[in-house]
C-alpha cells in the first residue's frame, strides 16, 4: 500500500500514536462499527428484537424463515398477482421511487451543475451567481421543504397563493395538487432535491473546469475546433474522473435522503423512499426487525460506492 513514509527522526514509541487515536477510534467503534453489526443481527429478529424473525411467519403464507423481515421489506409493497400489477406496483414502491430519485436527481444535478459551471466560468459576476445556486446547500432540508411546499401550494378554490399554480391558472390551466397526485409528486420532490444539490455538483465541477490547462484549450481552438467541440471532446474527457466522483457521491446522498420526503409528504401518496420507509417501520410502527432489515438493504445498495471510495483513496495515495 502506498504508505507515505514518516521522517525517520519522527519515529516514536509504539504506544504514543494510540494516545492520539484512541478517543476517535473508540467513538467510531461504539457509534458506527458496533451498531452496524448489531443492526444486522436485529434484522433477523422480530419487532422487539428478542425472538427470531421466523416466529413472525403466518401459517399458510409464504415465509422466508429468519429472513422473514427481508421478505417483508422486499415484497410488502408489491402486488404479485400478475406481471403487470407487479411492474406497476414496483414503480410506485419505495424501491421504484428511490430508483427514480437516483436517475433523475443525479442526471439533473450533474447536468445543470456542469452547464452552469461552464457558462459562468470567467464572467464578471461568477462568484455572485455561483453563490446564488450554492445557497440552498446551506439551509436544511426542512427549510427547503417549507420553501417548496409553499411554491407547490394548492388552493382548491379560484385563489392560488402558491407560485406554480398561480402561473398555471394565469395561463388558463387548471390548478394541480402537486404533492398528492401520485407519480407526478415524486418528480416534484426530485425537483426540490435538484434545487438543493446542484450547487454541490456545480462547485466541484467548476473547480475541475478551472484545472484544465489553458494551453490545451487554446491549442484546439487554434486548430479550428468550435467552442462546443472543445467542451465535449477536450474538456469533458479531461474532467471525467471528477464527474464520476460527483456521480457516486450524489448516488450515496440520494440513497440516504430522508428529511425532504418526511417533511413534504411523509412518504404518503406513493412518494415513499427506502430511507423514509426505514424510519416509518422503526419509529412509527415500532418494528425493530423490519426497520433494521430495510437499513441493511440500504447499506447493501451503498456498498459498491464504499468500495469505489476506498479504491479512489488508494489511487490518490499512490499519486502522492
Amino acid at each position, binding site marked *: 500500500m502506498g504508505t507515505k513514509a514518516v*521522517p525517520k527522526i519522527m519515529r516514536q514509541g509504539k504506544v504514543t500514536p494510540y494516545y*492520539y487515536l484512541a478517543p*476517535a477510534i473508540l467513538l467510531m467503534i461504539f457509534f*458506527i462499527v458496533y451498531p452496524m453489526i448489531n443492526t444486522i443481527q436485529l434484522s433477523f429478529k422480530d419487532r422487539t428484537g428478542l425472538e427470531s424473525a421466523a416466529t413472525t411467519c403466518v401459517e399458510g403464507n409464504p415465509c422466508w424463515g429468519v429472513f422473514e423481515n427481508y421478505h417483508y421489506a422486499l415484497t410488502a409493497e408489491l402486488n404479485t398477482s400478475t406481471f403487470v400489477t407487479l411492474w406497476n406496483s414496483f414503480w410506485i414502491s419505495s424501491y421504484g421511487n428511490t430508483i427514480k430519485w437516483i436517475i433523475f436527481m443525479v442526471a439533473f444535478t450533474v447536468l445543470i451543475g456542469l452547464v452552469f459551471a461552464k457558462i459562468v466560468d470567467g464572467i464578471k459576476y461568477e462568484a455572485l451567481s455561483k453563490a*446564488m445556486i450554492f*445557497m440552498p446547500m446551506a439551509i436544511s432540508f426542512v427549510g427547503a421543504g417549507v420553501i*417548496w411546499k409553499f411554491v407547490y401550494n394548492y388552493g382548491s378554490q379560484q385563489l392560488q397563493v402558491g407560485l406554480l399554480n398561480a402561473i398555471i391558472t394565469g395561463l388558463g390551466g387548471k390548478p394541480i395538487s402537486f404533492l398528492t397526485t401520485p407519480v407526478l409528486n415524486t418528480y416534484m420532490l426530485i425537483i426540490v432535491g435538484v434545487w438543493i444539490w446542484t450547487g454541490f455538483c456545480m462547485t466541484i465541477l467548476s473547480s475541475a473546469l478551472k484545472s484544465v490547462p489553458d494551453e490545451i484549450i487554446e491549442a484546439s481552438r487554434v486548430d479550428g475546433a468550435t467552442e462546443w467541440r472543445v467542451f465535449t471532446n477536450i474538456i469533458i474527457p479531461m474532467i471525467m474522473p471528477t464527474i464520476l466522483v460527483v456521480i457516486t457521491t450524489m448516488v450515496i446522498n440520494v440513497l440516504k435522503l430522508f*428529511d425532504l420526503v418526511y417533511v413534504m409528504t411523509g412518504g404518503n401518496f406513493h412518494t415513499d423512499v427506502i430511507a423514509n420507509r426505514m424510519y416509518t417501520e422503526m419509529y412509527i410502527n415500532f418494528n425493530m426487525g423490519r426497520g433494521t432489515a430495510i437499513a441493511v438493504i440500504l447499506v447493501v445498495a451503498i456498498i459498491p460506492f464504499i468500495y469505489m471510495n476506498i479504491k479512489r483513496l488508494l489511487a490518490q*495515495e499512490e499519486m502522492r
Partner: protein
Amino acid sequence: MKKEKINQFLSHIPKNALIIFIVIIWIVPTFGLLVTSFRPVQSINSSGWWTILNAPVGSKEYATYCEACHGNRGDLLPNANLGDPELISKFDRSVLLLPALAKEIDGAPHMKDVPVPNAQVVADIVVHLKNISGLETRPRVTLNNYIDALVGYRGTRTYTQDCAEDTPPLDINCNLSDLLNPRGMGRAFVNSLFVTIPATILPIILAAFAGYAFAWMHFKGRMLIFAILVGLQVVPLQMTMVPISRIYADLGLNATFLGVWLFHTGFGMPYAIYLMRNFLGSLPRDLFESAYLDGANHWTAFTKLAIPLALPAIASLGIFQFLWVWNDLLVALVFLGGTKPVMTYQISNMVSSLGAGWQILTAAAFLSMLLPMIVFFSLQRYFVRGMLAGAVKG
C-alpha cells in the same frame, strides 16, 4: 473596433440570459418565502406574495364607489365618519354593509346614481374601511409572524393583539418568559445552539489528534485503518440509530444533549479525520523535520506547528460540521424528539400539525435559516474548500 465590441456583446446575450434565468429560478422560491414571512396573515391567505406591491385590497373599489362623498380618509361627512371604528364595527361584513348601501338616505338612494356594487366588491370595501378606521389594520409588512413563531403562539389572532387585550391562550404569559415556550422557535433556537456548538467543537478536537497521528506518526496498520475509515464515511445514519437508541435507553441518555453530542461526534469522526489528515499530510515534510532537529517532540509539533497551520482546515471542518448538525432532522427526531425540540424538529412538527399556518411556518423556516445563511455568506470560502476536500458524509 466599436462594432466588434457590440458584436461581442450581442453574442453573449443568450449566455447571459441563460445565467440570469437559472439564477432567478434558484432564488425566487426562497425570496417568496422571505416576502411571505413579513406579510400579515390575512394577506398571505388572500393573495400571492408577488402582489405585495399592489394597491391594498379594496382601496381601488373605495375610490370608485365611496371617495367622492366620504373623502379620501372617510371623514368628510361628519354624521357618517367612516374613520370611526365603532361605526365600522356595525358593518364589518359584506352582508351587513350591502343593505346599508342599498338603503335610501333622506329619500334618495345612498349611492345616488351609482349602481350598488356586487358582494365581492363590497367585501373588498369592508376590508378597506376596517383598515382606514383602525378597526383591523392590515399593514403591508409586519413582524407579527416572527413574534408568533418565536413564542409558539397558536391562537387565532396574533400574540401582540392577544397580549394587548389581555386575552392570551393558556400557555402564553405575555412577558419575556414566552421566548422559552417549549412550542416556540425561541426555545428551539436555544436548543439548536446547545446541540450544535459542542457537537462541532468536540469532533474537531478529536479529529485533529487522530488526523495528526495518521499524517505524521508511524504505526502498524496505518493505511488499513485509514481505508476502513474512508469506507465508514458513507455509512448511512439509519444503519446505526436503532442499536444506539437501545443502548441510550439503558444508559438513560435518550433525550439528553450529551447523547446527541456524542452521537454527532462519533458519526462525524470519519469525515473529520479524513479532512484533517489530508490537510496535515500536505504540510511540508521539511517543516516537521527541522522542528525535530530543534528538539521538538510529537506533542510540541502537534500543538505549536500542526494546529496553527491547520486553522483553514479547522475552519472548513467547523463550518461543515456546524451546518450538518444545525440542519439535521433525523438525529434530533430520534434522540431528542419533543422533549428538547430543536429548530428543524419544531418546523417539521408545525408542517404536520399546523397544516396551512403559512404565516408562522414561513417565519419559523426563515428563523432557522438565519444562522446558516450568515455563516454561509461570511465564510463561503471555507465551506467550499471543505466540500472540495471530499464531502461524502452521513
